[in-house]
């Protein structure tokens, strides 16, 4: 009977509405909410923050071990977030987010910025920073121990490009060696290139027809190797044009290129003994907008009807537009670029095309100066070294551990 009475009392209490339970039961209810709070994941362990190597001192590398709840344990970690502060015991409000949420499984983050002091990504070098890593779940997080101080420092030498340094050094040695050989008077053979041999013929044709020669340096800056090579060819072409007393037109895309081209052409006219024939307006600026430049040059082509067109330098999508217009007006066209994607258009629409390195070698071909011939010979030996390196690398891959070969050949910047 006593048992039955106890059960009845418990059942009545269980079905009473909460307001009737009074203050004691409210407290019990709150306790149950506290118990339901999500449990934070285990924090990331063994956090390190070190200067990022081989850079300009604007980055710090942060590494950590995965939270025990990332791929094991509760398996509820959805990612990590890196925080940075300027003091170890900085208040939470002074810790800034150094990263977005990094996916789970991530164990490394390179926090980088730039030197623009007023910019949003400014990263001070040689300055103490502290880092901590948050492990995040869907509704809570945990924080690692704070690490630091750590400073981002400038590095004088980038070990990732040692292989590049070796090749530059080798190429310099080869160049100096062959230039010295050439200076001693040894005759060096270079095979004929049809595009180069046609230069004189093309300018001669313009002279016979009494029409101008059009020379386009492309869209590259004056610092691009293809443009530099083109300046050298322009010098030879301008000299020949001056000798033949044929008009020359050089519309330019970049103001600085125009400046250098003006000096180049002026010097060529002086070399030819005709400084008074040089017309400064023959080398002129059009615009630095790609297709506006094309529209302008195409208009010039249609109106001036040049007998000979040279397209030598760096070209992009305008290559076919220019070359097609030149073909339409019946010009003889010689093109050359190191932009692989544009070469097909020149091959299709021009009479002669200098492919890649042929453009670099063209100025040597035109001048035939013994010293410059030495550089061609050096280039060939450098290519032989490249062939040898590829074969040696492939052989080594078959015989030696791949990771070792990767450390030798992999380049990082």
């Amino acid at each position, binding site marked *: 009977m006593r048992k039955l009475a106890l059960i009845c009392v418990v059942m009545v209490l269980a079905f009473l509405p909460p307001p009737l339970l009074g203050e004691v039961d409210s407290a019990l209810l709150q306790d149950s909410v506290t118990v339901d709070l999500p449990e934070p994941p285990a924090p990331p362990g063994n956090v390190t923050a070190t200067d990022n190597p081989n850079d300009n001192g604007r980055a710090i590398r942060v590494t950590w071990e995965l939270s025990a709840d990332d791929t094991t344990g509760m398996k509820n970690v959805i990612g990590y977030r890196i925080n940075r502060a300027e003091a170890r015991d900085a208040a939470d409000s002074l810790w800034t987010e150094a990263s977005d949420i990094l996916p789970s499984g991530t164990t490394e983050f390179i926090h980088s910025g730039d030197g623009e002091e007023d910019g949003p990504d400014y990263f001070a070098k040689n300055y103490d920073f502290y880092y901590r890593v948050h492990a995040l779940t869907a509704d809570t997080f945990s924080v690692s121990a704070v690490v630091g101080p750590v400073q981002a420092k400038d590095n004088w030498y980038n070990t990732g490009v040692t292989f590049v340094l070796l090749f530059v050094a080798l190429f310099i040695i080869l160049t100096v060696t062959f230039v010295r050989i050439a200076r001693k008077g040894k005759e060096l053979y270079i095979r004929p290139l049809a595009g180069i041999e046609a230069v004189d013929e093309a300018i001669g044709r313009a002279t016979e027809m009494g029409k101008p020669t059009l020379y386009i340096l492309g869209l590259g800056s004056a610092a691009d190797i293809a443009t530099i090579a083109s300046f050298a060819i322009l010098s030879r072409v301008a000299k020949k044009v001056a000798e033949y007393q044929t008009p020359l037109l050089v519309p330019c895309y970049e103001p600085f290129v125009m400046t250098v081209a003006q000096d180049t052409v002026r010097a060529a006219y002086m070399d030819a003994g005709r400084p008074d024939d040089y017309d400064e307006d023959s080398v002129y600026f059009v615009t630095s907008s790609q297709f506006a430049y094309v529209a302008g040059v195409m208009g010039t082509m249609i109106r001036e009807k040049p007998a000979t067109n040279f397209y030598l330098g760096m070209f992009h999508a305008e290559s076919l537009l220019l070359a097609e217009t030149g073909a339409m007006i019946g010009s003889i066209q010689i093109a050359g670029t190191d932009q692989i994607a544009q*070469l097909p258009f020149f*091959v299709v629409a021009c009479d002669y095309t200098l492919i890649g390195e042929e453009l670099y070698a063209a100025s040597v071909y035109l001048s035939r100066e013994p010293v410059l011939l030495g550089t061609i010979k050096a280039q060939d030996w450098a290519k032989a070294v490249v*062939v040898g390196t590829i074969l040696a690398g492939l052989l080594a891959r078959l015989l030696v551990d791949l990771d070792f070969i990767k450390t030798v050949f992999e380049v990082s910047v």
Partner: protein
Amino acid sequence: METAAFDVEVFLWMTLGAAFTLFTLSFLYKDNPLYKIAEHTVVGVSAGYFLVILYYNGLRPNLLNHLFVPETWTPKFDELWYLVPLFLGMAMWTRFSRKWAWVSRYPIACYFGIATGVAIPNEMKNRVVEQINGTVLRVGFEFSQSGFLGVPQGIWDIVLVILVLASLVYFFFSKEHKGWFGGIAKVGIYTLMIGFGASFGYTVMARVSLFIQRMQYLRDWLDMI
């Protein structure tokens, strides 16, 4: 059924765009005054536009903001080394004087010196070392894996290496392309031409899609009329 409100401003801009498109396409017939209008407008507008862009994206952030406080234009004295590029830039203006034009050669020399110094390692890295890297490290000689046309990938890898080396041989200038050497060089130039053909077809497709976009623009404009 609701109809979209006719926006006069949009219509006028679209008409202008359509007119310039048609003016430019008229070049296909022959040079004419309409093409000249389009040509001179686009050249003039772009030249002016780039002058402003150059000032706001180049000159101001890279030079003037280091020498003057941006809002007040009062001089700053903590980064005086920026006076060096300022003087070099101003030296280019001496080209307007026959007497002092020689001064402009100094900034040109500085530019070429620095640019060449920067270019040499970059070119060596991008055009030589990474090509070697790509050939040596990316080729796996996996004969068990099926590749293009069902031929084992390892066979294609061998073909790739042979064609890379043959293409390199084509660019040897100091040896006559005769005999076995000439044969390898010929394989090299054929390789290049096959590559160019593929690239040509791919790019022409992209250009045709641009043309289609332009035609769609004209169609949309016609729909508005």
